[in-house]
């Protein structure tokens, strides 16, 4: 079973890297990019075959290590 975790900065937390990307896109002539937020995608290959327990386990991983919930939020997709 595969899981995909998206980690993004929480709304309201300034993202200096996203802001730099937005600026660079403007320099390249891409007008109208009002905002850029940069995050991480983490793919996990799991031995579990139970969807619900896999999701619960990945959520624990997010809380403990994959995301810093002081500044980041996460979503979990199980495929």
């Amino acid at each position, binding site marked *: 079973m595969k899981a995909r975790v998206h980690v993004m900065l929480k709304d309201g*937390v*300034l993202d*200096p890297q996203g802001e730099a990307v937005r600026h660079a896109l403007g320099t390249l002539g891409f007008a109208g990019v009002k905002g850029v937020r940069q995050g991480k995608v983490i793919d996990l290959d799991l031995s579990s075959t139970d969807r619900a327990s896999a999701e619960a386990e990945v959520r624990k991983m997010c809380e*403990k*290590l*994959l995301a*810093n919930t*002081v500044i980041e939020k996460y979503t979990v997709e199980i495929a």
Partner: protein
Amino acid sequence: MKAAVITFPGSNCDRDLAVALAQAGFAVARVWHKDHDLPAGTDLVGIPGGFSFGDYLRCGAIAAQSPVMAAVKTHVERGGHAIGICNGFQILTETGLLPGALMRNAGLQFVCRPAGLRVTTADSAFTAGWRSGQSIRLPIAHHDGNYTIDPEGLARLKGEDRIAFTYIDNPNGATGAIAGILSTNRRVLGLMPHPERAVEAEQGGTDGSVLFRSLAGVAQAA
């Protein structure tokens, strides 16, 4: 006065910190990140700067899960002193021993230069050698030193007089120009500047030795 300095894969200020502590009078033990215990009688734990685990995932995130950090938590819960410098500060926030997080510098540049700091409180074993409000100078060298905390957390740090140092010219976008903070019991300090790189005149300044001497005095009295 026993200090334990931890080394993670990628630490690079561990030896400097050990030398600075020894110069101040500490008996210094070196501890590996896979150790499960601190040496008996450890008064102070030093978590050094560097790039533990290559800054993978987030600065300090992997180091925070090291076996030795469980021992550091126990030491802190028992009222022991700890100092985390630069990457050490990042590790302390990642373990939850200090609030907030260190994000990428607002200017995206690695900043490496001497920085003017204000000692915001003299009420701690780390800062008792200065006067509150005194300006000092310590080197900074970091890419992720942008201290971030929510407004409630900031109000709490201010209300409890737990901001140890602020930058005179904010180099990284840190909330409230914060360079270092104290734990609730004032026995854990995390700071981005490097006091261990300012203990000999040859290093361009000796303001850092004030911190280590003050700490040694408190450890001796305890």
